[in-house]
């Protein structure tokens, strides 16, 4: 997943196309979302219609997230560097949980955050939010149980001698088998030969995390998936 090409002019054309497509899709999504709201508000909308309306809204919100991330990812490629703005990771996690769960008005979703007393600061500005939101949304989508359930914890970890902050996202339902989690973000990625990649949001989360000098991986467990989003540490003060 990279918007760079060898031909500079083609690269610029591609940036413009991504920008235009994303903008159009978000406007189209606004129209559809408002139309759904209008239909829901009109008299006679029964419970089933309401349920379908909530499902449609969820799909619109998820597609919006994917297009926004694509736009941000291509913009950072265009600029040639990732944002360096410092972010309070604990606050970023809280906002990502709130934004991600809002995307599922049609489902029962429980995301439990184990608050950390450590002050975790990472660099990456808006990209940090995109990584976390895409990760949480993607894991909820993988969880097909009646109530998606996830535990989130932020902790410090030394990786190859360098301090990292790790956001652990554990599937509490054991609804996302470890193997599925690993295959989705691990070995599949973007394979130009087989085109086996799926779940664009999860793949983009991995690409963005790596561009920030971190990683998005799964831990092998006997139960459900444990996803780890890793960010290079900036400050432990």
């Amino acid at each position, binding site marked *: 997943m990279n918007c760079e090409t060898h031909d500079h002019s083609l690269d610029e054309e591609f940036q413009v196309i991504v920008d235009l497509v994303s903008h159009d899709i978000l406007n189209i999504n*606004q*129209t*559809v*979302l*408002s*139309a759904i*709201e209008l239909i829901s508000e009109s008299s006679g909308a029964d419970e089933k219609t309401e349920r379908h309306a909530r499902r449609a809204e969820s799909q*619109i919100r998820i597609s919006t997230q994917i297009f926004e991330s694509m736009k941000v990812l291509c913009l950072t490629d265009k600029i040639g560097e990732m944002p360096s703005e410092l972010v309070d990771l604990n606050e970023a996690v809280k906002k990502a949980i709130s934004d991600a769960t809002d995307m599922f008005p049609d489902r029962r979703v429980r995301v439990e955050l184990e608050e950390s007393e450590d002050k975790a600061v990472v660099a990456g500005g808006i990209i940090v939010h995109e990584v976390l939101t895409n990760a949480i949304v993607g894991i909820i989508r993988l969880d097909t149980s009646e109530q998606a359930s996830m535990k989130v914890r932020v902790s410090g970890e030394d990786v190859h001698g360098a301090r990292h902050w790790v956001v652990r996202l554990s599937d509490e339902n054991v609804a996302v088998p470890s193997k599925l989690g690993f295959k989705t973000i691990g070995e599949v990625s973007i394979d130009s030969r087989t085109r086996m990649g799926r779940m664009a949001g999860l793949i983009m989360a991995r690409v963005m995390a790596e561009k920030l000098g971190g990683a998005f991986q799964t831990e092998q467990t006997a139960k459900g998936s444990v996803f780890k989003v890793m960010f290079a540490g900036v400050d432990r003060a």
Partner: protein
Amino acid sequence: MTSVLIVDDELFIVELYRDILQLRGYKVVGMAFDGEEAIRKYTDSPDKPDIIIMDHRMPVMNGVDATKEIVRMNPTQKVIFVSADVLVEKEARDAGATEFLPKPFRMDDLIEKMDRVSPP
């Protein structure tokens, strides 16, 4: 009744905002499809709208420039900026926008912001 001017280049969006806002008890006093038309309608209107809902990416003149001009004419004018360009938020606020909402949004979210800036 709170009066509203809707500015967006997408006809369907303008019509949907209008219908939903009217259902919720707002008075839609005008619609414009680009920034220049918005300024013209604003200038020509003897009764200024309480709130302007302003899009950004429009032909002829964008929302930031239109907001700047309208707020220059009337510094107390309430403008709620709505855009699919999330990165334009700072520019919009610097231009004088009172609130910012990224598209797509629920009308409840827009109305919450409208209630916040509506005259008592």
